[in-house]
């Protein structure tokens, strides 16, 4: 039985906590240094979105080890409860920037990971699930 790790995202410093804890776990699971970097960076992008755009800058990250046809992997879920993204296609375009001019980093995150799923509803919240398989 694999345990699920939960990292609450509340303040800006939690971005560093999230990416360091996921890097460490990835290392322990046997991911190489480059994949550790990819995973840590993807988590950084997603948790920063929570701090910057989520209601009360509040969200949660869940990390769990997964098994699949390709072997072992890491699944990370970053979720918040608002405000939600109105146009998913728009935010997945390279070059999209939000009001702050910084962009949501989602296309980049997708490139770094093997799988990514995004569900969002205005007024409800956003959940991003990313997976990386150990090669």
């Amino acid at each position, binding site marked *: 039985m694999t345990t699920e790790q939960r990292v609450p995202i509340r303040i800006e410093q939690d971005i560093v906590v999230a990416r*360091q804890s996921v890097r460490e776990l990835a290392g322990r699971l046997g991911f190489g240094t480059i994949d550790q970097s990819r995973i840590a960076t993807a988590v950084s992008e997603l948790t920063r979105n929570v701090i910057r755009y989520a209601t009360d800058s509040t969200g949660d990250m869940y990390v769990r080890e997964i098994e699949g046809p390709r072997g072992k992997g890491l699944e990370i879920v970053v979720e918040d409860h608002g405000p939600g993204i109105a146009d998913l296609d728009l935010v997945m375009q390279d070059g999209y920037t939000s009001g702050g001019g910084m962009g949501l980093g989602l296309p980049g995150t997708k490139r770094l990971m093997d799988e990514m799923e995004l569900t969002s509803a205005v007024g409800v919240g956003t959940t991003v699930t990313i997976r990386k398989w150990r090669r």
Partner: protein
Amino acid sequence: MIFPIVKIGNCLIATLTEDIGDADAMDLQESINTRIEATGASGVLVDISALQTIDSFLGRLLNEIATGARLLGAETVMAGMQPAVAMTLVELGLTLKGVRSALDAERGLTMLGQHLNGGGQ
């Protein structure tokens, strides 16, 4: 957080640790600008050899540090990027073309050579 910025000749040297949060990164940016203005430094070396993660925020910030320094008359070199970080940055879609880069601090200082000897500006 207070970042030690060392001055050698006309060069400022800032050494980053293995991770740096957003607020600290912005503090560093401000510190570098303040020090350039106060000392008239014409070269800035940012040693990132220990840095393990550079995401889109930090990547853009490094570009900004170089641009800001240039406006204040100083040249910036980023030294010692880890291969894993370089690969990740490039896959993220960032090339940091606005900053010069060196393999390590030694090479970086060689590139800023003239500024070390008190030349430059």
